[in-house]
């Protein structure tokens, strides 16, 4: 630090490097240190200066705070006031932090798991590779197509595979039931929805139609077709296993009121 030095000696009492608190400079010295949760009083006496191994005498302090303070006093009787005072201060500090350790271990510990950079990078690349990008051939808006690298483009194939049949069923049932006025309402509804979503829908339309026409287009590469067909095949196969698709899909319950509710938000100002 700018004003003071820290002492690196482990037996130092205050931690600062002064003449009065250096264990090497003073022949009579004492410290309190703790080991594995127990506190010891270390004393250095001038008679043992010739025997470095026996230099520091160790006294175990009791676990009881007040008793330990008394023990320090007993052992350091007739010692200079400064050392006694500092020893007690240090002992107090040590017990306080020991208490805090014990309290913290009872609470939940936050374990920091380090991220390994290489592994993170590898997993991110794998994720990007796992998400198939739409191989859009020569679409009229190439910029849009590239920007829209949604990994869920194969989803289009998915979606218009399954609901068609249910939609057909529902359509038939509804046509059997409903009258012309309901049809008119539904058209209105769809028109408004279309309006809202018209921007994106067009581009998607082109993509969809691209996919549909891909078989006819000569310029499309063979690989893309294969992949598309494969994906569709694998999707339809895997769908059979999902539990939710098994039970029969119910027809759309058609109630006038509900349709009106749906149109309300779309008639508000267009947000998208």
């Amino acid at each position: 630090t700018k004003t003071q030095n820290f002492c690196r000696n482990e037996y130092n009492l205050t931690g600062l490097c002064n003449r009065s608190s250096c264990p090497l400079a003073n022949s009579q010295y004492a410290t309190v240190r703790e080991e594995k949760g127990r506190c010891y009083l270390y004393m250095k006496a001038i008679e043992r200066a010739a025997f470095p191994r026996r230099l520091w005498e160790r006294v175990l302090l009791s676990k009881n705070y007040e008793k330990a303070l008394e023990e320090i006093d007993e052992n350091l009787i007739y010692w200079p006031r400064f050392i006694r005072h500092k020893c007690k201060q240090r002992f107090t500090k040590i017990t306080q932090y020991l208490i805090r350790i014990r309290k913290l271990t009872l609470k939940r510990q936050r374990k920091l798991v380090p991220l390994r950079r290489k592994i993170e990078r590898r997993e991110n690349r794998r994720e990007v590779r796992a998400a198939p990008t739409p191989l859009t051939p020569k679409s009229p808006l190439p910029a849009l197509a590239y920007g829209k690298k949604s990994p869920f483009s194969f989803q289009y194939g998915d979606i218009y595979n399954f609901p068609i049949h249910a939609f057909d069923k529902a359509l038939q049932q509804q046509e059997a039931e409903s009258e012309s006025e309901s049809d008119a309402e539904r058209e209105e509804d769809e028109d408004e929805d279309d309006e809202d979503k018209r921007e994106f829908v067009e581009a998607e339309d082109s993509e969809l139609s691209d996919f549909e026409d891909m078989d006819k287009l000569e310029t499309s590469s063979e690989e893309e077709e294969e992949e598309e067909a494969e994906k569709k095949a694998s999707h339809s196969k895997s769908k059979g296993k999902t539990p939710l698709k098994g039970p029969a899909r119910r027809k759309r319950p058609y109630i006038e009121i509900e349709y009106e509710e749906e149109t309300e938000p779309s008639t508000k100002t267009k947000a998208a």
Partner: protein
Amino acid sequence: AGDGRGPVPGDGTDPPAPERVLFPPTFSVSEIKNKQRRHFMFLRWKQQQRKEKLALKKKRRKEREALGDKAPPKAIPKTIENQRVYDETTVDPNDEEVAFDEATDEFAPYFNRQTVPKILITTSDRPRGRTVRFCEQLATVIPNSHVYYRRGLALKRIIPQCIARDFTDLIVINEDRKIPNGLVLSHLPDGPTAHFRMSSVRLRKEIKRKGKEPTEHVPEVILNNFTTRLGHSIGRMFAALFPHDPQFIGRQVATFHNQRDYIFFRFHRYIFKSEKKVGIQELGPRFTLKLRSLQKGTFDSKFGEYEWIHKRREMDTSRRKFHL
């Protein structure tokens, strides 16, 4: 040696077309010491390769057309999904043991429509901006879900309280440096707990061409490509988050698509423009998950019984081996 190299750049004129240049068999582009020349030679070589490839393709296509019906079927290109190492735990749709297991596991009451899912979404301590917003959006996507702040509560203490208040699932979104990066999904009445690594989280405003917010209708759930036993149980966990009866009026669909062990979550709204054409609109957040571990009971990191842990050394050795 100089003759073998053909015309050299720096002569001013463009060298003649590559077909006329004949390389002696021992020649290799990388042997030229001069960088400029080497680069030039390499480009020329590349062009030549491309031309050859195109010619080959054309020839093949002509042959195909010539043969017409008798043409041999096109070769299927190899993809990693094709070459996937066969996993012995792949579920066969007719497997009785699996069916029996599923009828008696922790999700049975959900699939028998006895319980309605009620979800608690929370985060790790002190969530920051993106995570908070992500939680809110997730709550709009999943019906019947509630977001609560963590405020330093221990998960082990939360869980009995949740069970007492009839929650069926708990989602904890873990955060790192202000972005969500992990997800713990725990089925509450003593159900399995799955820990995922979450990545590529896109909030609603970051999704291009999004629609309006998701409405309160119950979305439909699509689970794709969960083939193995492990994948099956995870798929059921996801399915159990949503109420069992989707409202088709809402035309919303939530998809969990598994590909190469990454689960992509997307939320769309669809509309039928005609019989065969569907338009879809992406709404709602999107994220990808990778399963890290699956525990038998509720969340307990020390004493829990792990059903599956991702062990990097053993499981990431082959590029074609996937576990979900």
